[in-house]
């Protein structure tokens, strides 16, 4: 486990973002101006990074570059791509974190390649059998000292078939993450099921419920249903990667459909347009609440090192925020918190 460092270095996989390397470099540059204790290690094509860096405001004392001549594209198969490209930016960045050159990894690139690179270079925390990909989802409620409107859902795809033991580990990891990042002292943790009763759900969920109910130090509130996700009934929702991914994609689909309907309404009739205009301040507020860029990215939990997966569409602000989230997880020793949680 990584101890609490005085200065935190975050490795950024510069090459994978939808908006190209310059956007990730801009994010790291922004971080170098805003956070004196965080250093950025930019991993990617050096000439490209240098060109991007030379033209933007940054603090050269807090940025270094590690050349990696290759990268994994968004549409490539992770396993094959990493085997073919051992010097890809995400693989090199993960290796540098494992070697202690940086404390955490941020990537906006191919999620599968990021998870696989971590699996190859990082160690699982003792007591964790499988890593979990967590995501944040905007809800009606707010939580923690930061008045965070996001709840955490895990796993959303890293471990497709989770056992009861895995679900318990996910609950502990999610709770530790919410406590540290959202500054939520006693995050409410629940299992996603097809009913709130303890006996509802497949055997692994029922068994996990029994075990979580007996765990000290965890604020386990029982089962929740799908409808509770957008309501924000709880702070951490635990499920396996298959169900979590289906839920996430459905929620994203609903969001997109609502936006399309609003656009349709805007074009269709003057009366509806006027109605939307009257609601504009409310819509703006809703945009603020659901602004995922302020959250930075989603963590891969379970490894001894921190990996924050930033959205592929991340702009500089989101990348900088992902760096801050990663640094916060390092500074507060997330790995140690998870290990202690599992021991209870």
């Amino acid at each position: 486990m990584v101890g609490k460092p005085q200065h935190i270095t975050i490795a950024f996989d510069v090459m994978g973002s939808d908006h190209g390397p310059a956007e990730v470099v801009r994010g790291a540059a922004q971080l170098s101006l805003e956070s004196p204790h965080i250093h950025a290690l930019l991993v990617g094509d050096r000439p490209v990074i240098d060109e991007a860096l030379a033209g933007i405001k940054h603090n050269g004392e807090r940025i270094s570059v590690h050349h990696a001549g290759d990268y994994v594209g968004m549409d490539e198969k992770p396993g094959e791509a990493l085997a073919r490209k051992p010097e890809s930016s995400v693989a090199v960045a993960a290796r540098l974190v494992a070697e202690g050159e940086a404390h955490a990894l941020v990537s906006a690139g191919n999620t599968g390649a990021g998870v696989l690179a971590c699996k190859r270079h990082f160690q699982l925390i003792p007591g964790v059998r499988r890593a979990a990909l967590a995501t944040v989802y905007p809800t009606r409620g707010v939580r923690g000292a930061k008045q965070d409107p996001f709840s955490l859902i895990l796993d959303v795809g890293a471990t497709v078939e989770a056992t009861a033991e895995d679900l318990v580990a996910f609950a502990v990891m999610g709770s530790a993450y919410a406590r540290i990042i959202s500054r939520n002292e006693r995050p409410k943790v629940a299992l996603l099921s097809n009913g709130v009763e303890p006996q509802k759900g497949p055997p692994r969920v029922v068994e996990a419920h029994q075990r979580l109910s007996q765990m000290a130090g965890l604020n386990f509130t029982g089962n929740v249903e799908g409808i509770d996700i957008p309501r924000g009934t709880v702070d951490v929702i635990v499920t396996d990667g298959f169900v979590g991914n289906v839920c996430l994609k459905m929620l994203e689909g609903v969001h997109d459909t609502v936006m399309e309907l609003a656009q349709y309404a805007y074009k269709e009739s003057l009366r509806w347009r006027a109605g939307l205009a009257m609601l504009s301040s409310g819509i703006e507020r809703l945009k603020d609440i659901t602004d995922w860029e302020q959250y930075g990215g989603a963590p891969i939990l379970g490894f001894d090192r921190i990996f924050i997966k930033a959205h592929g569409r991340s702009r500089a602000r989101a990348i900088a925020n992902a760096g801050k989230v990663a640094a916060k997880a390092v500074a507060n020793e997330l790995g140690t918190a998870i290990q202690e949680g599992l021991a209870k």
Partner: protein
Amino acid sequence: MSLPDRIDPRPPRRIYRWDLDKTYLQTDFESLRDLFRTAFQKAHEKVAVPGASALIRELAEQGDSRLCIVSGSPKQMRAVLEEKLKLDGVQWDEFVLKDNVGNLLRGRFRALRGQVGYKLPAILESRVNAPVEAEEVLFGDDAEADAFIYSLYADLIAGRVDERVLTQVLEAGGVYPDDAARVHEAWKKIPIADPVRRIFIHLDRLTPPAHFTPYGPRVVPIFNYFQAALVLLADGHLTAPQVLKIAVEMVQTAGHNIITLSNSFQDLLRRGLPLQQAAIALSQAMEGPNALLKAMRPVPDILAAFSKRLAALGTQPPPPRVQAVDYVSLISHALPRTHKGRTLKPQT
């Protein structure tokens, strides 16, 4: 006095010209409040930029250099500024301050903020009496027009700028006729030579380094004075142990650490500055017991940090291209920041 009794100072082999605010001193004058506070600060309250005083002291070590300070601070601040320099152990040969009260009384309002009409004649007049062979290194910052003025000064005395361009620049820079006349007069007295080796620009405002690309590789934007020391080591102005002393002072007094120093080293390498020999000299200087270095970290850690930053880059990028500076098109860099014509977009 008989001839053997006279002790004349040796003619300077090197001249170091410094600006003061934001180059040597950490000064805020962004708002009226900052300006007021700066004006009434006592000498011991003023803070030097980390490593600046150590660098000046090390550059003076050989005893054959001159330190010439030309600052935009008003003449009324002379006593407190001199006291601050003395507190820092800095000895100077020339110290020119701006006559802002005089400008105000004479209604020369452009001169209050303008830098070209103030600094260019001041440094040209200073050069008139210098030996032709004396090399120069200049230190400025990105808050004012230092890169422009220093480069113009260097190219004027090297004969690379003609009278027509100079006149155009002085007119576009809003220089008053008497200051322009001083520029022409001093310039004509200086024998043609090419003495300016480096112009360091302290990035107080963190202006993107590419903004200075049009000035060519002679101008080196720096985030800190460790970077200046590394370049001066490569240029033969400092020895490796002297660079280490500067680094140690920055670590001990300003919270710098092995990460910030090694990142600074790599930043220069990425910009194509040829520092490989300097790195070797530093490594050799670190061999053997050195009490100063113990203040930083164990020597192997320092070497490893620097080696890693060097190795991380793969092949060394080509050095920056030498080019003629187009002063007429860069005149906006020399105008005060509030001027409408001023643009600070990075240029490539």
